């Protein structure tokens, strides 16, 4: 039930983001969600794509420092308080969210949130039996097409 996320090291200089996303475009990689966190000198680009294995292979071949990690994707209603409820559910179980980013899917009428936690299994367990749904890799892409 986990989602493969790609993390990419990007130096803060003009054109780098264009170069990196260009590699993905050339290989027909579809980006579903992204987040960039940055410091003064560099950033880390995090992506959810349709074909993470190919994406990683192409990025590595281009000499780009990148990796794949498993993260959770949850589906929540696109309404006030929903995200807060989800986070509270996790924190009640002592699960710390290291970072998260969200995107809305008009077709599904829901918001998807990518969350990165230390222990995916514990987080999945914590969400079991709640109204918060875990979303799989295929699901994210099926619903957007």
């Amino acid at each position, binding site marked *: 039930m986990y989602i493969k996320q790609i993390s990419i*090291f990007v130096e803060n200089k003009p054109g780098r983001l264009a170069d990196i996303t260009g590699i993905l475009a050339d290989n027909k990689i579809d980006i579903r969600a992204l987040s960039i966190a940055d410091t003064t000198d560099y950033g880390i680009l995090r992506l959810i794509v349709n074909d993470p294995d190919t994406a990683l292979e192409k990025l590595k071949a281009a000499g780009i*420092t*990148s*990796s794949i990690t498993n993260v959770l994707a949850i589906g929540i209603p696109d309404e006030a308080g929903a995200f807060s409820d989800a986070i509270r559910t996790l924190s009640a179980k002592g699960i710390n969210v290291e970072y998260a980013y969200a995107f809305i899917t008009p077709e599904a009428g829901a918001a998807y949130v990518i969350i990165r936690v230390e222990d995916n299994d514990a987080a999945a367990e914590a969400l079991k039996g709640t109204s918060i749904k875990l979303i799989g890799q295929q699901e994210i892409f099926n619903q957007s097409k």
Partner: protein
Amino acid sequence: MFFQKDIETMPRKQLEELQLERLKWTVDYCARNVPFYTKKLGEAGITGDKIKSLSDIQYIPPTTKADLRDNYPFGMFAQPMKNIVRIHASSGTTGKPTVVGYTKKDLEVWSDCMARLLVAVGTTCEDIVQISFGYGMFTGALGLHYALEKIGCAVVPNSSGNTEKALMYMRDFGTTALVATPTYALYMCETAKELEYPMSDYSRLRLGLFGSEGTTPEMREQLEKGWNIFATDNYGMSELQGPGVSGECEERDGLHFCEDYFLPEIVNPETLETLDAGETGELLVTTLTKEGIPLLRYRTRDITRLNYDVCKCGRTSVRMDKVKGRSDDMLKIRGVNVFPSQIESVLLSIDKIGPHYQLVVRREGFTDTLEVQFELTDSSMLEKFSEIEKLQKNVQHRLQTVLGIQCKVSVVEPKTIERFVGKAKRIIDLRNTK
């Protein structure tokens, strides 16, 4: 003005006789007391007796910084510790510093040499002199300190750092002369302006006694204008004794060697062949009286030229030009010697760092900065920013421990640092480019 006029104006012929006598003594002294030299001179078949003229020095094998490092810490000392009264150290080419020891007599000679050069630029017993070199293992501060006391100056051992306090002392004490690196003196001036201190508060300051790094003509102009002083340079290195090996006089037409204590020569840095008088090459210096750590034909790696004409000031000693460059890749950053090899040994000792790195030296305002860039190749660190930051801090800390200066540490993408076939050019020095 002279501190020891007889020596400073000694006719050249007489000076050379003195040098020859002392060179013979030094050769035998080295052979007798330093196993490194016993072996080296033995192999070359050289004894004091065989030295018939000063030019015979060319048959003595040169000594390098690596020799000092290989004999770390006290292997090059010619005296037992009971006769050593001071130990200093400077940056080595890799992890270990270069260590030097002084006998009581060495310290006397040192302060005499330095005092001569200070008096030659107009320092007197009336002066209040602030020393803004860092005290500690480096030779700069104490070298100046004892010479200034010998002249009878009032010494303010302010050390470096805490610029605002240094400016306060300068103003309140009516400091007349400043000892600093030229870059730090410029930084102090800039700080005073930023704090909107009226420069008239420093009107008693008249003399800049700069060293530890050379002053470029542009810096000299800025220093003289900014502080309204007479800026002078002196030269030395801890291996030879510290500051006071050579220095300017009031004519500021080259740096007078303390030639009765140091014998300079110029060689081709590639072939080590002796060059004719007036040619530019690497400066080699032989100590002529040193007891603690005598050195034969020490390779300074500084590129310069020697001028044997008698100076307008009346001194007969040979003058060296300002150092034009280096025959190795040593950098001077805020007056501190930095060898890229030191940085390399730190970087290579840390996991997760690729072998490719680059050094960028800049002048920001009036301060030299060093940036060390390395490629982030380990993708396992992408999960948390804190991992990368931790690595940067670790590198920074270890570099500071080895180099003694703080530097910026940047991570860059793989393959962004230029690859070299053969000898890598890892240094980008932007200080003298506009």
